């Protein structure tokens, strides 16, 4: 019996193994894969379902393979960006099979990641200028996110303010969003006519998207521009970072758990300009040297269901005191003091829901208090009774909910709503505004080359007692592999700025209409973009006789941007040029004129090179701004704003040297703004009592030099595993 079984086994073994090689003859299956029968598709995976047999198409869309299989099979063709095609094939043996596979439907759902040339890109971020955290760090010579943005087309070189002035708009017309939530005090508080830095370190953002107009319906309350910042997800590893500089010390730590689902950390920082002003005294006479204390903490938790929760808290306190000669009365000094308290919290959650919905939610609370003191000191000493104080308090509580889903295979639908509770107070005057906004937007492919984004945003402010409806439209036409021509239109509303609302709550929204035509060509190493824009302002705030919505204006111009990482080996450079023609009548302007914050021409050149031999990165940033207008009260109303400041030149230098201090990775940074020491004048303050007296507004320190050492200490002990083995 055993012998019988054994021989049976041998027979069976023979039957099942050898006929295949002895009898079977390979049949050739070949053919072409096209899109709609016209365009051949390369790198399409063609396979006989359930077998090892198949091939991929070449550049002409051709494929061929041999198979031993017989019977009815499914031939499946898979191409990224398209819906899979399968057709039944009958394999009878030796006869070769010639097939024509036609793919007809494009898909935006990438089931399998397959590499192929980009056919189209519906990503809205395509329309933004994007900088990576490192690009921000090496461009901004002062570690300020906003400084890096100032080298991009559309931004104006306005040195007397830390805000971003875009395409003829004021600084308050640009809003900053962190993970979809509005940040109302992105920069530190500073006395008027001095630029303040960002409160947030560039390293905490993984993506920086700068839109200079025609932006999505997801954002609002910014007449000119939005800066959208996305925070990092989980850090790569636990570490501790230290910054040591004569003007600042910071220490921060981040911890990551073993399965990389939870991280937490925090940091403290102290900036003090005392030593700096002793070594390199600037134009400002400080009675109390600027000092800033900051602290932050974060928790990021990834849940099993894929949900991501992020909490970020940032608090700061700063003080400074300045002595300033009173321009109206000689022998009198103004003593100005400024104390700031700031709190910002941001809690966000995102998760993929059933049926393809993506959900993003956020809650944020921010509070800012500025206490300004103004004392008058006569030459014979201070008079306590002449000190006046002002307290400005603002708070913003907001909630945001966004849902998005792919619909109809080629369209993404996004709907959302936000709720803000704003309180503003100056001494005893205050107001509260409940602001609501909801938006819906679709992004879709109408044809293979033509894409459209259509959105609408509806807002309501309880303070203004009014609603508005803001439509947004953008059409894109792809020309070739990497060219994109687009036209955009959008209506943008913004509440009047705080000081006007405190005085006169009975105002309405200011508004702007954007019309933009742009063309861009984005290659791997080279980017070119040009935009022509027209912006029509309406209902701007006039302050004469009392705040009212009687102002108006326009801005038009064009911009060029070219970035190249290839032409000069190892050098990454970009050039931005902006031409701006703008006039507006607002505030106390007697007529419509080019405003003081608008330069007719702006040019920025940024170049970076990493010298690998000395492990040093060199960055140079040059900015030119044509002379801006300034108001001279000695002129008649007809000649208002006809004077021009000298042109603005600024060459910034940054050096970053990588090194190891006892195996801790360290970077030694030296940055100098205005290396050439060009005279920079941002405007003039005229005396109200003696109009012949004026005083130039200049940078507080020119040039400004920063030197600092950044040290990262890994707290990873895993290194020892390797060492123990050697």
């Amino acid at each position: 019996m055993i012998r019988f079984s054994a021989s049976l086994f041998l027979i069976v073994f023979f039957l099942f193994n050898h006929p295949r090689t002895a009898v079977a003859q390979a049949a050739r299956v070949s053919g072409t894969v096209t899109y709609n029968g016209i365009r051949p598709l390369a790198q399409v995976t063609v396979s006989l379902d359930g077998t090892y047999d198949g091939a991929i198409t070449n550049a002409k869309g051709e494929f061929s393979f041999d198979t031993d299989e017989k019977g009815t099979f499914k031939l499946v063709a898979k191409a990224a960006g398209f819906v899979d095609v399968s057709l039944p094939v009958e394999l009878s043996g030796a006869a070769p099979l010639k097939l024509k596979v036609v793919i007809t439907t494009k898909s935006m759902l990438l089931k399998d990641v397959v590499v192929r040339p980009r056919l189209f890109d519906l990503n809205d971020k395509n329309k933004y200028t994007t900088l990576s955290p490192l690009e921000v760090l090496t461009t901004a010579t002062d570690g300020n996110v906003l400084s890096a943005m100032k080298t991009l087309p559309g931004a104006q070189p306005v040195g007397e303010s830390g805000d971003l002035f875009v395409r003829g708009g004021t600084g308050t017309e640009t809003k900053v969003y962190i993970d979809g939530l509005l940040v109302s005090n992105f920069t530190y508080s500073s006395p008027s006519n001095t630029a303040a830095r960002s409160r947030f370190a560039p390293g905490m953002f993984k993506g920086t998207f700068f839109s200079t107009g025609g932006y999505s319906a997801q954002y609002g309350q910014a007449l000119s521009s939005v800066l959208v910042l996305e925070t990092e997800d989980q850090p790569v590893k636990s570490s501790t970072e230290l910054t040591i500089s004569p003007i600042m010390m910071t220490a921060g730590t981040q911890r990551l758990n073993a399965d990389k689902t939870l991280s937490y950390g925090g940091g403290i920082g102290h900036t003090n300009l005392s030593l700096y002003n002793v070594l390199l005294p600037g134009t400002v006479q400080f009675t109390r040297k600027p000092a800033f204390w900051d602290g932050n903490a974060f928790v990021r938790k990834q849940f099993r269901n894929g949900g991501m929760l992020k909490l970020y808290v940032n608090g700061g306190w700063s003080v400074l005191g300045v002595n300033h000669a009173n321009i109206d009365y000689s022998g009198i000094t103004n003593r100005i003091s400024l104390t700031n308290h700031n709190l910002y919290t941001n809690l966000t959650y995102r998760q993929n829901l059933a049926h393809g919905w993506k959900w993003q939610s956020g809650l944020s609370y921010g509070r800012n208090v500025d206490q300004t003191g103004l004392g008058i000191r006569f030459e014979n000493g201070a008079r306590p009774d002449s000190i006046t104080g002002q307290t400005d308090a603002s708070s913003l509580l907001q909630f945001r909910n966004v849902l998005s889903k792919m619909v109809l295979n080629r369209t993404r639908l996004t709907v959302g709503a936000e709720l803000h509770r704003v309180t503003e107070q100056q001494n005893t005057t205050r107001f509260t505004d409940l602001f609501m906004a909801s938006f819906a937007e679709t992004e879709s492919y109408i044809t293979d080359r033509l894409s459209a984004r259509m959105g609408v945003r509806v807002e309501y402010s309880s303070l203004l007692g009014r609603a508005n409806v803001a439509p947004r439209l953008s059409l894109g036409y792809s020309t070739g592999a990497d060219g994109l021509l687009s036209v955009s239109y959008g209506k943008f509303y913004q509440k009047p700025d705080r000081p006007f609302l405190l005085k006169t709550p009975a105002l309405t929204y200011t508004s702007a209409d954007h019309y933009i035509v742009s063309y861009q060509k984005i290659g791997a190493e080279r980017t070119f973009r040009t935009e022509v824009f027209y912006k029509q302002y309406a209902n701007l705030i006039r302050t004469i006789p009392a705040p009212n919505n009687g102002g108006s204006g326009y801005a038009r111009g064009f911009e060029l941007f070219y970035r190249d990482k290839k032409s000069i080996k190892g050098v990454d450079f970009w050039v931005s040029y902006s031409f701006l023609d703008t006039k507006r009548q607002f505030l106390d302007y007697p007529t419509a004129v080019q405003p003081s914050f608008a330069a007719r021409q702006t040019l920025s050149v940024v170049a970076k090179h990493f010298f690998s031999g000395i492990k040093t990165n060199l960055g140079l940033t040059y900015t030119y701004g044509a002379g801006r207008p300034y108001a001279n009260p000695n002129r008649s109303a007809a000649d208002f704003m006809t004077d021009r400041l000298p042109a603005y030149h600024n060459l910034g230098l940054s050096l970053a040297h990588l090194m190891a201090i006892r195996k801790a990775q360290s970077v030694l940074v030296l940055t100098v703004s205005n290396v050439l020491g060009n005279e920079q004048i941002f405007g003039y303050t005229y005396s109200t009592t003696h109009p012949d007296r004026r005083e130039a507004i200049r940078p507080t320190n020119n040039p400004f030099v920063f030197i600092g050492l950044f040290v990262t200490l890994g707290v990873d002990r895993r290194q020892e595993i390797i060492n123990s083995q050697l």
Partner: protein
Amino acid sequence: MKTLLITLVNLFLFGATVFAQSDKYQKAMEKNVALFDTARSVPSILTLESAFGRIAAVEKTQWLPYYYAAMCATTLANREADKNNVDAWADKADALAAKADSLSPNNSEISCLKATIHFARINVDFMARGPKYSALGSQALQQALTQNPNNPRAMIVLAQLRSSAPAGYGGDKEQACQLANRAVQVFAQESATGIAPHWGSKSATKLAKTCEQTAQK
């Protein structure tokens, strides 16, 4: 007796089918792994990547087809001239590696594969990505060496990292040479054929040689 006979026949039939199937798998893998060992051109690696992918799709329980498909995708990421496409290949390699990992958890070879995928991503933007992905890659290598302290591929990949990265960012020439020499010893005892991962020997010999030359100077 008759029932027993039928059962036995059925058993043998079944066993033979399984055997035939795995034999087919073995042969297909041997053929493709041999091609993988010598493949240099991008079209040949593309073809191999899809061939391993098809085997993986049929077999479903074998980790090696996924492993080799991921290796091919990583090579393609490294060979990709258009930097915009590097991440797509790396994403694909990651997805394949994750499948291999689920079929064969705690596998030192797969951890080592994951490290090479991280390193492939650095090429897109060396300055911006270097710190993050070299850290992730070196973590994956540490894991590979914890899972199997005698994995010569993890040793040589780590040695290459130590040799090329700047000090303070994972660079350590001395350790690189020690690792390379150890890898050469392990490779000498390993079979250079079969379908189990066996790549890396040449790189180890080359680096060990460079070390020797540097030491002589």
